Each structure stands twice: as structure tokens, then as C-alpha cells.
């Protein structure tokens, strides 16, 4: 029998090469035509502590973790308890470990999983230049049915820089592991597959967000590193440069957000990326972007909060601050990618919207999206490329904040004669001069509101799928397990609608009502403790009479199985 999808966890001390093995397995799987997903977890040690790579592979697209684990490959038992909650061990799980690893920890044995010990360390010694992670990769390659060519290609390209000898050692290690697994009973082999000529990409959500910015037209970025957003910036630094843009490492987030306002004022689409604590520091200046109508994009990769919280784990708890963290009445854009590949689309679209509507856009990604790698189809090119409404040289009587029907006032870019104006965070008259008059205030407030609410966001505001009287409403990274839960429910003959909101601000009240037509029950799914999304829905939308909430804070991700349970128990 070949599996539809398999989940594998690889754990061990940081030095054991857990992540490398996981990554190579994913990449080789991709060469074999399989889709896949890999997430990481590690202990508090900065280096050398316990680490885990969680993989899922399948002949069809994969966007979230499963709720069962097929194989746990433990290179050693180092603090494996730390990952207990993330492992989903059961009696079907095959646990592989070294024959000399010592007593099987209680979390493993008590799960009823089948433990198979292999002479890994012994084998390492037998293979010249052998490393335990290559042996492990060999074992796994055999069990999942990786074609040899795929593995060879991945090993060769990963170790190209280290030279032919390293490549040969690794291949030998792989082979040794492959042979070790010969007698291990396991039905995890995936059905053979091909890429059907569609180009496959290997990309993380953070890289995808960076690329989305770049493709949307961003050419200036100011950066201050913070977990789990740093990779957005680290991907952009060398790549922006190639397309004629630049990245400045700033002294802090107060500087990075204001630097991008400066860049954007100069006509260059600009963005930054951060996480909760950094976003909080950016809120004052975000208001300046809104009031001065200077487009900017901030990708906020959420982590566990509050305060420093749990920097390496995911949560959806920055929804409130993204929506409401600006002082004063400050309408802006809040979007959220709902899958790893969607980090590209949503970021690119957000750049387009910010530029088109001359406002601040916050893209709410999260650690689960940002730091996971996915193997997916190459995304299609989009038409969303920054295009600001600007004035030509020498317009007469130019007024920067002129009151227009659309609410968007044409902008003058420095260098344009006749367009000279002073952008201001003080309330102002249409001619940009400070004003505290009630008429000017209301006129500009109306204008800044109108440009956002009247704009037609098309059907990108949400992913709406399926039919049925029950709707599951969600956003962001909980969308993938919701989707999978609904697929499983549909496989059981149920009919369920999914609404995953990509545009969280401005509110799409009418479209939401339309999407809910015929729905009598709504199940709301979110990963927060204080029910932020649920309260947001209550505040701004009409919900059906029956509403049920299933929420949980991080760090444990939502799983399809538990969502399916919620659906089934409510039907």
C-alpha cells in the first residue's frame, strides 16, 4: 500500500544535522515529484540544544501539519520530551532510534508507538566520512521510497562547494542507511509522482514575502532584525540590490519605519518586516504614514505574545494591534496571507494597494508561515505592480491633499517642478498647510476613509470555497488546517463552506454578507487566547444566529483533525 501523505519528525541534538537531513529529504522528495512542507522546532539553547524537523510529503500540495505522525526518527533522545506535544505519536507511529541510544523515554514508550532500534552509530563508524544524518536520510529514503536519482541530485548540489569527496562520503552514508532500512517494516512509501513539467519551487513564507515585495515594486527596505521576521529582510538584502534597490540596516524599528516613509516620500515603493515588539514600536510612525498619505508596507511575522513572549513560536495574537494599534482615527490596510505560497501574493498585493491608496499596509504573516518551507508549484505572475497616482511637472495650483471623489489625491514626487509641498502629520487643509479647523479635519478624515472603503478589492478579500449551511471562518495560517478539515468532512459527505479572510481592514461588510448567504452556522477558528478574531467579526460583521468559536493560543499549531472534530460534533 502506498500512503497519500506521510509525516516524519527528525529529532536530535543540534549538532546532529537534523535540519540538514530534513531539508535534503524535502528537496529530494521534490525532485521525485512530491510536494512537501517542513517546519522546525528547537529548545532554548542558542546552539547545540535539542532540535526537531517536522516534514510532511505528499503527491498533492501540502500546507499544514497532519495530526498523526508516521515516522519519528530520533538520532538521540536528547530532551525529546520537549517536542512531545508536537509529535502526535500513536500506536501506528514507527519510532526509529539508535541501538545504543539508551532507554526509550517515557513519552515515547507510553504512546504505544512501535520502536525499532538500528545500529546507526555503528554504521557511521563503518562508513568513511560518514555522518549520522546521512545514514538517517538513507533510512528514510528507503522507507518513503525516494528514487535514487533524486537523492543523488540533491546531495550533489547541496555539497557542491565542499567538493567531490564530501559528495561521495555522503552518498556512501546514504547508501548505508538505505541498506539498514531494508528489513524495517513500514507502509509509508508514497506513490510515485512526477512534476508534470510544472516548475516546482522550494520556498519559505518569509522568502515569499520578500519576493512579493520585490515583485510588487519595492526598491527600498529598512531593516532591524527580529525573530521570526529576519529572513524576510535577509532575503531582500542581496536580492534588492540586484534589481537596483537597496536595504539599510537601521538602528532600531523607530528608524526603520520612518526610513521607509522617507524612501516612499521620494517616490520609491518601500517596506520593512518585523514581529510584535517591533510592530509596537512602529505604531506611532504608522500613523504618520496614514495622515501624510505616504504608502508603506510592513510585513509583521507574528510570534507568541505578549511582550517578548515566545519568539520562535507562532500565534495570531497581533491581530488587534494591527487593526487598532494606531492612535486617533487612522484607517489603513491589514492583509494576511493564508498559506506559505500566499505570502508572495498577499505581500505583492499589499504593496500594490498601499501604493494605489497612499496608505500604510500591514501584512500579518506568522512564524508558522514565515519559517516553514514548502515545495509548491511556481506561482503565476501577477498584475499587481506599484503604480501611484502622481502629478506631472508644472501642474497649476497643485494641492497635495485635494479632496477627490475617490479619496486618492495625486501625489507629487520630489524632482517634479510645481509639485513642491510639505507632507504633514498635523491635520491639514487640502493645500497641505496645518489646520485645526473642524471642516478640514472632517474632510480629510472622510477622504482618508473613503479612499479605502470605496476601492474595489475584487475577490481577493477572501478565499471562499465550498457550499453548505455551515461556514468555517478563519484567517492566516489556520486556513490550511481548516481547508484540510473541510476536505476530510467533504470526503465524508458533508457540505461546508470556508471563508478565509485575506483583507482584514478595511472591513468588507457587504461582501462578507454575500459570502454568508445561506449559511446558518459559523464556526470561527483562530489561534489566540483572547478571541481577537471572533471579537473583530462581532464588531464589524453580521454573523449567523449560531456561532461557535474554537480558539487556542500558540505555540501548538491547529491541526485538521481537531477542526474536523469541531465540525462533526456540531453538525
Amino acid at each position, binding site marked *: 500500500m502506498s500512503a497519500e501523505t506521510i509525516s516524519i519528525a527528525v529529532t536530535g541534538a543540534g549538532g546532529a544535522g537534523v535540519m540538514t537531513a530534513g531539508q535534503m529529504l524535502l528537496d529530494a522528495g521534490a525532485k521525485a515529484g512530491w510536494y512537501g512542507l517542513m517546519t522546525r522546532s528547537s529548545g532554548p539553547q542558542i546552539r547545540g540544544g535539542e532540535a526537531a524537523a517536522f516534514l510532511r510529503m505528499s503527491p498533492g500540495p501540502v500546507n499544514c501539519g497532519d495530526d498523526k505522525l508516521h515516522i519519528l526518527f530520533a538520532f538521540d533522545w536528547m530532551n525529546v520530551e520537549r517536542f512531545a506535544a508536537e509529535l502526535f505519536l500513536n500506536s501506528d507511529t514507527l519510532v526509529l532510534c539508535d541501538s545504543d541510544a539508551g532507554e526509550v523515554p517515557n513519552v515515547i514508550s507510553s504512546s504505544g508507538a512501535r520502536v525499532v532500534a538500528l545500529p546507526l552509530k555503528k554504521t557511521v563508524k563503518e562508513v568513511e566520512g560518514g555522518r549520522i544524518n546521512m545514514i538517517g536520510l538513507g533510512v528514510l529514503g528507503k522507507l518513503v521510497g525516494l528514487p535514487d536519482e533524486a537523492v543523488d541530485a540533491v546531495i550533489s548540489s547541496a555539497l557542491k562547494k565542499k567538493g567531490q569527496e564530501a559528495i561521495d562520503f555522503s552518498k556512501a552514508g546514504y547508501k548505508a542507511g538505505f541498506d539498514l532500512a531494508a528489513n524495517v517494516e513500514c507502509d509509508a512509501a508514497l506513490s510515485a509522482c512526477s512534476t508534470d513539467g510544472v516548475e516546482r*519551487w522550494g520556498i519559505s513564507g518569509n522568502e515569499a514575502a520578500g519576493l512579493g515585495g520585490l515583485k510588487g515594486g519595492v526598491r527600498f527596505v529598512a531593516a532591524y532584525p527580529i525573530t521570526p521576521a529576519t529572513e524576510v529582510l535577509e532575503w531582500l538584502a542581496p536580492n534588492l540590490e540586484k*534589481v537596483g534597490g*537597496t536595504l539599510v540596516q537601521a538602528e532600531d524599528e523607530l528608524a526603520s519605519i*520612518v526610513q521607509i516613509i522617507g524612501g516612499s516620500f521620494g517616490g520609491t515603493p518601500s517596506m520593512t518586516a518585523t514581529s510584535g515588539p517591533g510592530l509596537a514600536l512602529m505604531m506611532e510612525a504608522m500613523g504618520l504614514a496614514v495622515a501624510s498619505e505616504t504608502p508603506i508596507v510592513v510585513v509583521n511575522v507574528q510570534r507568541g505574545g505578549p511582550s517578548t513572549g515566545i519568539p520562535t513560536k507562532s500565534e495570531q495574537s497581533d491581530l488587534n494591534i494591527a487593526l487598532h494599534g494606531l492612535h486617533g482615527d487612522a484607517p489603513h490596510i491589514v492583509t494576511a496571507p493564508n498559506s506559505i505560497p500566499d505570502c508572495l501574493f498577499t505581500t505583492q498585493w499589499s504593496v500594490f494597494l498601499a501604493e494605489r491608496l497612499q496608505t500604510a499596509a500591514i501584512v500579518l504573516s506568522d512564524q508558522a508561515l514565515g519559517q516553514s518551507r514548502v515545495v509548491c508549484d511556481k506561482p503565476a505572475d501577477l498584475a499587481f505592480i506599484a503604480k501611484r497616482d502622481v502629478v506631472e511637472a508644472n501642474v497649476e495650483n497643485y494641492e497635495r491633499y485635494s479632496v477627490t471623489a475617490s479619496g486618492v489625491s495625486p501625489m507629487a514626487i520630489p524632482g517634479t517642478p510645481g509639485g513642491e509641498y510639505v507632507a504633514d*502629520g498635523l491635520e491639514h487643509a487640502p493645500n497641505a498647510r496645518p489646520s485645526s479647523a473642524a471642516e478640514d479635519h472632517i474632510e480629510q478624515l472622510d477622504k482618508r476613509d473613503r479612499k479605502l472603503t470605496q476601492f474595489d478589492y475584487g475577490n481577493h478579500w477572501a478565499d471562499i470555497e465550498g457550499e453548505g449551511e455551515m461556514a468555517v471562518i478563519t484567517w492566516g495560517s489556520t486556513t490550511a488546517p481548516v481547508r484540510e478539515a473541510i476536505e476530510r468532512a467533504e470526503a465524508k459527505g458533508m457540505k461546508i463552506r470556508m471563508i478565509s479572510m485575506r483583507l482584514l481592514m478595511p472591513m468588507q461588510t457587504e461582501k462578507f454578507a454575500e459570502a454568508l448567504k445561506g449559511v446558518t452556522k459559523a464556526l470561527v477558528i483562530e489561534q489566540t487566547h483572547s478571541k481577537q478574531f471572533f471579537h473583530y467579526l462581532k464588531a464589524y460583521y453580521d454573523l449567523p444566529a449560531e456561532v461557535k468559536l474554537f480558539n487556542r493560543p500558540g505555540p501548538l499549531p491547529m491541526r485538521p483533525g481537531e477542526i474536523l472534530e469541531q465540525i462533526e460534533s456540531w453538525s
Partner: protein
Amino acid sequence: MTSETAVVAPKARDYKSDYKPVWCPGCGDFSVLSSVTKAFAEIGTPKENCAVISGIGCSSRIPAYTSVYGFHGVHGRALPLATGLKVSRPELNVVATGGDGDGFSIGGNHFMHACRRNVDMVYVVMDNEVYGMTKGQASPTTAPDWDKSKLTPHGTGINPFQPLAIALAAGANFIARGFSGDPNGTAKLIADAMKHPGFSLVQILSPCVTFRPEQKDWKGMVRPAEIEATSDIGRAARRLMTDDGFNTGILYKGSRNVYRPALEESETVAEVEATFAL
């Protein structure tokens, strides 16, 4: 300036707007405004290629009184805004402006890091040793015994901030001090600052007649520095650390490395994204 008539040398008034300043009659900032516009005229940058960027404060109101592009941003952040603008639009003549509170209190970190980064722009600080806009509290440059603020009724009791010494230690490339009572001299300092590559600090003693009326005495206290501008960091350090705050002129002129990204396209987006292909 695409017109076909002969190009006339720009005048200071071309860089002034017709908008009436909110400043108190007699405020030193009026003449700083003149100096800034004179400096633009001297350099001759077409006004659409000039930008004046500020934070919040009386002094930070200056952009609207010029006729060039400008940004009246948030308190303390003139320098990062100017940095983002200049780095992405290197051809513009970018002048950041503001007060001692804006620049050295809430904006102090950006000040240090702008000095270090050494982007080619000018920073004009109108120093009146007080927060004028919020009605008279001590600023970092206020003397420790000034006890006229309700917030510090016995004076701050702390050593005044030394902007020029800090600028030097942090890495600024051009350091000068002017006095608003000498608008021509100050205009020249600003123009020299514009010509000098890298980050140039021009501190201008600019009295607050409302909350620091005693600053009218500054007129009799300022004097042109006796020694020429130096490029020796050690000498400049000694000089600035022992300076009484009333020597005017260019006090340091360096040749530190200027931050200037290339902004040249070498690949298409398609080439860049090809690296994700497996």
C-alpha cells in the same frame, strides 16, 4: 526648469513660501529660515530637487515656510526620514532640520547613528536650550541650574548634552556652529555643509524669546572660532570637549567614508526568483 528663457540664478526668496510662520515675534528661527533659503540659493539646486525634513517643535515648523519639498514628520525622527529619502534618491539636496529637543532628546539615537552612517546630507539644529513648542521645559542642552520649568523646579541637575562632541565621537563628517543673529554667516555655513560630502551637522544658536528671554545676551557672547577648521580627530575632540559653546564657524571637516548605495540593476526579477526553482 525646462523653460526656454535663460536660466536666472535663483534667489533666496525663490525658496521661501508665502505662509506666515507661527513663531513668536523675535524668535531666532526666522533668521534661520533665511539662512536655509540663502544656502539653497547659493548652491542653486532647483527647488524641486530640494527637500527639508523635520520633526516636531517650533523649529520643526520650518519646512512649510520654504517652497521646496518637505516633510513635517513626527517628533524626533527627522533624520531617519531624511536618510530614507537621500539613500533612495541620492540626487536630491536633503536638509534635515529641527530643535534641540527633537534632535538630541527623543531623536538622540538617530542623531548618533546618522553621524556614524554618514549619508550625504545636512542637519540644521536650531538650539534654544528649551522645548519651545510645549511651553518651556528643559532640553538636553539646557544648563543644569535653569529652574524656570515646572517639570524641573530646581533645574535638571544634569550636565548639558554636547552635540558637537557627540557628533565627532559618533562619526559626523562636518561640524559647525552658527548663530541666528548672523544670518549670512549661518547661510554660508549651511552652504558649506551642503558642499561637504557626508553627514554635516550645523548647530545654530537660535534664541527662544518667549521661554528663554535671557538668550538675547547670546549676541554678545558668540565669537568666530579663533582656530581654523581641523580635520584631525584628536585635536577636534580636545577642542570640542573644552569648548564653551559660543565659538562659531566650521569646527571639524573630515573625510570619513560616505554611505552611498549603488542602486544599479544587474538582474531582472525573473532571474532573481529563478533561484527558488528546484
